[in-house]
């Protein structure tokens, strides 16, 4: 790295030793090109060999290295040290349980992704039918919501997830919405059933910080609002459908 040094304060937590996380300052060198992920690796190599953090691609694709930087959810590989010369506090992603140091338990997020069934449902085309073409307009409908890298920054930005750990959350909703909007998919009924619960999209109050911190500009807050609109239509349809069924039922009984 280089000539200048700065202080980086890192949250440490060893579940076998500590009762709660604590902050530990480290003196680290930096240059114009240094990103936080380099700095964390420097600390692990030179100052605290037991420091735990997640990372993989180093280029904003894998979504592994999410941390809180001065209280803001960020990817470590996308955070330039030169912008934090006044000081930097690095903590594990907010609202998730802390496993160790900067590593959090993302199980809830993963379960929500699974619950959204992020794959094409109910399309019975076969390979001999040829490619399933879409127009640019059909792709534009969902393309923005398809850019998610599952980094979880939006969950760490969402106070509603903090207040209600059962909340479906922004990222998973955006992913479900992406498939609901896909012209090749017929599974929106299944996904809307999950979305239309108390812990589904309706726990959202449109704080909007999720879209602010998303490194891929997916705009999950917009996805959630659009799912609320779709969910409200689905609600009306269900009420009408129910009434229809009752009438059919009574007809059947009378005859």
């Amino acid at each position, binding site marked *: 790295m280089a000539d200048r040094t700065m202080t980086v304060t890192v949250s440490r937590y060893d579940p076998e030793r500590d009762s709660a*996380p604590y902050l530990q300052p480290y003196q680290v060198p930096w240059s114009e090109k240094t990103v936080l992920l380099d700095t964390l690796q420097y600390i692990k190599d030179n100052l605290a060999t037991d420091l735990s953090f997640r990372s993989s691609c180093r280029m904003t694709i894998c979504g592994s290295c999410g941390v809180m930087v001065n209280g803001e959810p960020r990817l470590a590989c996308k955070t330039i040290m030169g912008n934090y010369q006044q000081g930097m506090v690095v903590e594990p992603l907010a609202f998730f*349980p802390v496993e160790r140091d900067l590593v959090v338990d993302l199980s809830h997020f993963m379960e929500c992704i699974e619950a959204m069934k992020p794959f094409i449902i109910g399309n019975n085309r076969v390979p001999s039918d040829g490619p399933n073409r879409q127009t640019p307009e059909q792709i534009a409908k969902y393309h923005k919501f398809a850019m998610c890298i599952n980094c979880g920054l939006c969950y760490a930005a969402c106070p509603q997830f*903090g207040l209600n750990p059962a909340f479906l959350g922004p990222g998973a909703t955006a992913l479900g919405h992406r498939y609901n909007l896909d012209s090749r998919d017929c599974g929106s009924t299944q996904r809307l059933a999950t979305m239309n619960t108390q812990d589904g999209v309706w726990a959202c109050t*449109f*704080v909007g910080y999720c879209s602010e911190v998303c490194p891929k500009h997916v705009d999950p807050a*917009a996805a959630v*609002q659009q799912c609320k609109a779709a969910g409200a239509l689905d609600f009306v349809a269900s009420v009408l459908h129910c009434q229809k069924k009752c009438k059919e039922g009574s007809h059947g009984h009378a005859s």
Partner: protein
Amino acid sequence: MATRRKPYIREVDGCWWLRRPFYRFYMLRESTSLFAVWVSLYLLLGLLCPSTFLKLLNNPIVVLLNLVALAAAVLHTWTWFGLVPKALNLPEACLGKIVKGLWWTTAAVSVIFLLLAIF
């Protein structure tokens, strides 16, 4: 072997929104609802008991509440029109036109009310 995991849960307290400017502005936006309810109740009083409504109109506390309610209503309009495009999955250009249309409608309604009040 028993697990050595001991996940640390950081409890969220009722003051979470004080810690970031973005959250503070969210709470400011939500707090406009208090004044929406105030205006609603005060106008309801105007319908049910016009004499009391008129008498209170010059009460300094009521004047202050109404002034803050005006500011809150403007903030509500501004934030609401900012959020409307999020609920619609339409091309950018289309959304721009819709928001512009909403502002023009608001301007037109406001001018009509002012004209009705003056003449």
